């Protein structure tokens, strides 16, 4: 893929739950599956324990994208944590839109502990989407990147 914003490397933060998505990330590692290296993973016990303020704070500190990863619906280790996380994601999107942040930057996704390829695929998808949207306006160096001239001509 050609660079839309030359030199721009998205910073992606992922909150992964201990029981499913972190295990998937672990498996992706042991299986040597390739995925973008610009992902920072924070392991939490359950997707519901990520308070929305943490997601907002990540964006305020300049993250280009935040992935909140949990178990598939019905498979939560704590019964319904991921459902509550889903309810909260509605509120997060509301606040992001007020902050002027594109809603595509935040994703709540499900990933079981066996889905190493699925995990890598989600990260690749997010990375590619962020390369198209470009740097977040909250990034301190956002003004450094501009659309390549080729794209502007189109």
């Amino acid at each position, binding site marked *: 893929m050609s660079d839309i914003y030359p030199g721009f490397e998205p910073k992606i933060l992922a909150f992964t739950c201990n029981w499913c998505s972190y295990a998937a990330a672990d498996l992706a590692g042991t299986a040597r599956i390739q995925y973008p290296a610009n992902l920072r993973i924070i392991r939490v016990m359950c997707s519901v324990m990520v*308070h*929305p*303020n943490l997601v*907002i704070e990540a964006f*305020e500190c300049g993250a280009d994208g935040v992935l909140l990863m949990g178990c598939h619906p019905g498979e939560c280790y704590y019964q319904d944590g991921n459902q*509550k996380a889903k*309810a*909260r994601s*509605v*509120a*997060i999107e*509301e*606040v992001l*839109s*007020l*902050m*002027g*942040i*594109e*809603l595509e930057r935040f994703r709540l996704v499900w990933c079981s502990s066996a889905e190493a390829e699925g995990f890598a695929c989600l990260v690749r998808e997010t990375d590619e989407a962020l390369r198209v949207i470009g740097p977040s*306006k*909250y990034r301190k160096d956002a003004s450094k990147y501009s659309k390549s001239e080729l794209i502007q001509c189109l």
Partner: protein
Amino acid sequence: MSLTLCSEALSGCSGCEMSLLNAGGSSLSLLGRFDIVHMPILMDHKYFDSGGGSQEIHIPKARLGLISGGVRNAQQLRIAEKMRRQCDTIVAFGTCAAYGGIPAMMNLFEDEDLFRRYYRSAEGTDAALDPSQVIPPFLERTFALDEKIAVDFILPGCPPHPDFIASALESILEGKSPQLPLVSVCDSCPTKREGKGSAQRIRRFVKNARYQPDKPISEMRCLLDQGFLCMGPVTLAGCAGMNGGPPRCIEARVPCRGCHGPVRRGGNQIMDILNALVSNGIDTKNLADRLSLLRFSGAHGRLNRRCVQKAD
């Protein structure tokens, strides 16, 4: 020894100064100990030499500077910077200076929308061109004071209660930092709570709350329990002053609007209240007032022009 005081009102409504004058007896005893050297709202003072030579803003040196209002245009920014240089201690006085306040709601829109609304499309307005003189150039949005200059203390409130102003000035005279409450409005609210999750949905406040007019506030059921959007849980206490009465809006039997800003400095009122509601299974998508939940704390980049939708 008297303390020299400078006061400035930027992008605000001068209500905070009214509250200062409203401090009554305590203000009279305080006034003798302050020497007001610059306060355009109360006394005449020229920023520039009458000779017209220098373009430097003139504000006298002072120990204490009270600044109310946020920073919206270039002139206010110059005044704020000059105040910082001339005053030893700067207090962000009122919610506008501390968190942006009502003027920061404009951050959702473009300047062009503002001018179109004010000079062309408002009812009863004769259409005119955008003003090109007198109004100083706008900054890109409304800023809280601490985004532009270093601030030593904040004194939130719309306006701050006279008790707090008096006690803050008192502490500054004694060389201590002013003490703010550390709890939310709910902590100082006497209404009856009947349990979490009893409200199934949140209604607009078009119908009055249920209460018996002859009974005290402590007999009324919590307004959030009754299904009205009350900002009490996410708002700093203190609107009732030092004597510990019920919060002022609640006393008038209407929900709290959140005028004291977040409980913790740097908190996010809209995120906290929406999180509390959705975590209790309340659908916030249909909340009519949800865009104005940051009506008092929209600076610090909390409100921004939207990427997706354009303002009407």
